[in-house]
């Protein structure tokens, strides 16, 4: 059935609702027209976001960007100092981020400042 149909046609038929799908898990046997694969190669954008200035920003840039881009931090909701402390602790102890211990207070200070939740 569907195995003799051109693959290029499948999305079109699906979009038009013309193709009756088989029951879930239904097998189309035998595989006389197996899937053909093309190698894939892509380049990912580097991104353009940066941290706004503030006390501790250098410590954040130095320690946090190895594993993820700034948006991961910039898009967090306002979090308390306690929550940020837990997050930094998780990054270091669970995810083994190579954060310099002496930088931790500055990092937490910046993140809390960013959230506007500093006392």
């Amino acid at each position, binding site marked *: 059935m*569907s*195995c003799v149909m051109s*693959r*290029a046609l*499948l*999305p079109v038929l*699906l*979009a038009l*609702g013309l193709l009756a*799908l*088989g029951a*879930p*898990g*239904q*097998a*189309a*046997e*035998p*595989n006389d027209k*197996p*899937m*053909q*694969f*093309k*190698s*894939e*190669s*892509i*380049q*990912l*954008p*580097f*991104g*353009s*976001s*940066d941290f*706004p200035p503030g006390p501790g920003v250098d410590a954040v840039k130095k320690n946090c960007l*190895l*594993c*993820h*881009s*700034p*948006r*991961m931090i*910039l*898009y*967090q*909701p*306002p*979090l308390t100092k306690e*929550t940020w402390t837990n*997050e930094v602790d998780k990054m270091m102890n*669970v*995810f*083994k*981020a*190579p954060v310099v211990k002496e930088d931790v207070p500055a990092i937490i200070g910046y993140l809390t400042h*960013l959230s*506007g939740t500093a006392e």
Partner: protein
Amino acid sequence: MAGFLITRRTLLGASALGGLALLSRPSLARTMVDLALPGGPAEREIITDYPEKAAMVLQRTRGPLLETPFGVFDKSVFTPNDQFFVRWHWAFIPNSVDADSFELKIHGHVNQPLTVSLKELAKDFPRVELAAVNQCSGNSRGFFAPRVPGGEWGNGAMGNALWAGVRLKDVLDRAGVKAGAVQVRLSGLDQAFADAPRFIKSLDIDHARDGEVMIAYAMNGEQLPLLNGFPLRVVVPGWYSTYWIKMLNDIEVLDKPDDNFWMAKAYKIPDTPGANMKPGEADVPMVPINKIVPRSFITNLRAGDKVVVGAPVPMRGIAFGGDCGVSKVDVSTDGGKTWLPAKLGKDEGKYGFRQWQAEPTLSASGNYTLMVRCTNENGLAQPDTPNWNPGGYMRNVIESIDLVAG
């Protein structure tokens, strides 16, 4: 669901995020979307720079988190590959995969360890097809109250595709699972940083052999985009996306439960109805996240829309039952006091999106709250109050839109 309105604006060092200037391309006009996340930041860039992808909501550049713009869900019951959401835990993903030399290994507690090429997988095993929703465990996390840290998704970390591939069961049977097997551990080509835990997940052996769990090599009739897991991705129908390992190249049969970080510590939910608990509540038993719960969305109307009084208002959208099919979809125009049945579209498979439509008439001018509610075939309906848990998982509260009839 306040606003998914896309606005085009030039950000000349202006603050998109309440005090955070987030850009270094100030002269370029950028298309932004407001995800209406309570307390913000709610604005995100719509990006078209990613290979294999059309317009996507940029949540994080590295490792990529790309959300499907919500309007896509109004167009088709199947989510196109070039707008299917992308979620990687670690930034260390290969940017090329060679189709001829790629190998899938099956080993561990088996009689005959196997190494299978893509060509062999496609030729030697029966091809199966299945429509299924792939939804991130944390889809809609950004709407949690109180907010929780994590990927701050709107509602677009989900999609429905027609998956084609082979049954995991058939591959396991070829290797011969030994007596005493407990779980099957799945891992892909992505790597973690240094000593960090690699992202790997396990399924119980009976689940892995249920004949529905699939190793997919095609998505909507095409090979998978690399960002969605080319060349092979696990499909676990009715279960959250965390188990749908991308770039699958290793299957290990275990004779004891997997205690790796991503099973034992992460992706845990309260073992309560709707994965619900109170913020700060202590001693709540936690279990690994598992089956998807029902959801439904209005896709053709937006908060603040004005509609004509006294005439039928076309409402439409998508619903899914989760681990079973959609039994019914109801709509309300009075904030949930009364409900009317919606008409269901074609059934493309119980694990997929189901389109629905309704045409209620708003008889007097004024403000209305429109709602939609899905009940699945197990009788589970969406709740009218949102759940909460510290991971921001499994949101499925009834969605609503405020609009004006006049």
